[in-house]
């Protein structure tokens, strides 16, 4: 495996990826993976090429939501690289494709870091418009590794409305700020529930938490996703929500959010177009090279 952590991955397969988006929350269970999958499907539907990396090694869920349609195989061009799995037109990589669902990954952090680096740099992602990284919960070692090794275009913060979730999400926001990763916006998941017959809207987890968070930190609010049985049913069955329930409010909310996300991403790119993101200045004695 060599000296992974000190390498500069300049010739990495990620060079052909245009934008890398991290989907994160400080807390588990807010729906990061569900949002990541549906965001990927929504971007795919808009005609983009999309990859999805499940960085949650301890609690991976991608194989269930996005069942692999391909077998594990090496890259024909470079056998040291692994091909990503494919599902519904999305290139995907997750530890859940490689291990039985019932086997726990009880391993130490350095092993996990190496796995993540392999997922990033030893997978032939090819040309992608967007690579979505479904971040693990928390603000720990794996998150730091990813942000030190990858030039993340921006992060999407997921929260649920209640204040216990918001407290943890604030920590994730601070982490991205410290690492200079711009936050593209906040999504409030499980925002409300529409009673199907009366159409009365309920807010079982409280109201307006996501919007409050975005105001507090000056981040764009990208939208709300309702509590909707169709979302969890599609995830559990490994179906695409975008094929089965085209006009559902859930699909419409994902479409709206992915549209807003791209607007903010492009605006950000314009504002940073002069920044040198990835540089290496080779020191030359008595030559004063400008690179």
């Amino acid at each position, binding site marked *: 495996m060599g000296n992974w952590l000190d390498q*500069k991955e300049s010739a990495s397969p990620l060079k052909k990826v245009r934008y890398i988006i991290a989907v994160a929350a400080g807390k588990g269970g807010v729906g990061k993976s569900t949002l990541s999958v549906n965001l990927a499907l929504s971007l795919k539907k808009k005609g983009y090429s999309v990859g999805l990396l499940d960085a949650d090694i301890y609690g991976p869920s991608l194989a269930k939501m996005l069942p692999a349609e391909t077998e594990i195989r090496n890259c024909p061009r470079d056998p040291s690289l692994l091909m990503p799995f494919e599902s519904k037109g999305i290139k995907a990589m997750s530890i859940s494709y490689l291990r039985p669902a019932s086997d726990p990954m009880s391993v130490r952090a350095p092993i996990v870091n190496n796995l993540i680096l392999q997922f990033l740099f030893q997978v032939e992602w090819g040309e992608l418009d967007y690579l979505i990284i479904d971040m693990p919960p928390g603000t720990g070692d794996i998150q730091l590794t990813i*942000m*030190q*090794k*990858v*030039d*993340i275009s921006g992060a999407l913060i997921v929260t649920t409305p209640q204040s216990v979730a918001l407290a943890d999400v604030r920590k994730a926001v601070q982490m991205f700020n*410290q*690492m*200079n*990763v*711009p*936050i593209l916006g906040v999504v409030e998941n499980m925002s409300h529930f529409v009673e199907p017959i009366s159409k009365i809207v309920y807010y079982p987890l409280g109201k307006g938490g996501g919007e409050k968070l975005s105001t507090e*930190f*000056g*981040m*764009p609010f990208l939208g709300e996703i309702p509590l909707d049985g169709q979302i969890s049913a599609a995830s559990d069955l490994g179906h695409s929500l975008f094929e089965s329930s085209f006009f559902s409010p859930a699909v419409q909310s994902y479409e709206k959010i992915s549209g807003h996300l791209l607007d*903010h991403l492009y*605006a*950000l790119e314009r*504002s*940073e177009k*002069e*920044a*040198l*993101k*990835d*540089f*290496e*200045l*080779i*020191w*030359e*004695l*008595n*030559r*004063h*090279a*400008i*690179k």
Partner: protein
Amino acid sequence: MLSNKNFVKNIYQKNNYIFTIEWIDGKISDYRLSDLQRLCSCARCVDEITGERLVNPSQVPDDLTAVRVYSMGRYALKIDFSSGCSRGVYPYEWLRQWSS
């Protein structure tokens, strides 16, 4: 939130011992390699609990040179010095504050 002045627009070597960063807002800062190594914040140079500096700054020669200076993620740079500790991470925010 969407715009940030802590971005490098250009970086170049000024002489054998100093490099220059041109920040995205136009500010220009010079950094002497020996100064940066003396301020290395890695766990071997600074005691994590007391914050006490464990390496004597006078041990770092003024004419310290480097092998390379490179970006780390979006927030920091690292330096492979020609000698001494190269483990330090130098966040852009810190570099900007320190130069002003």
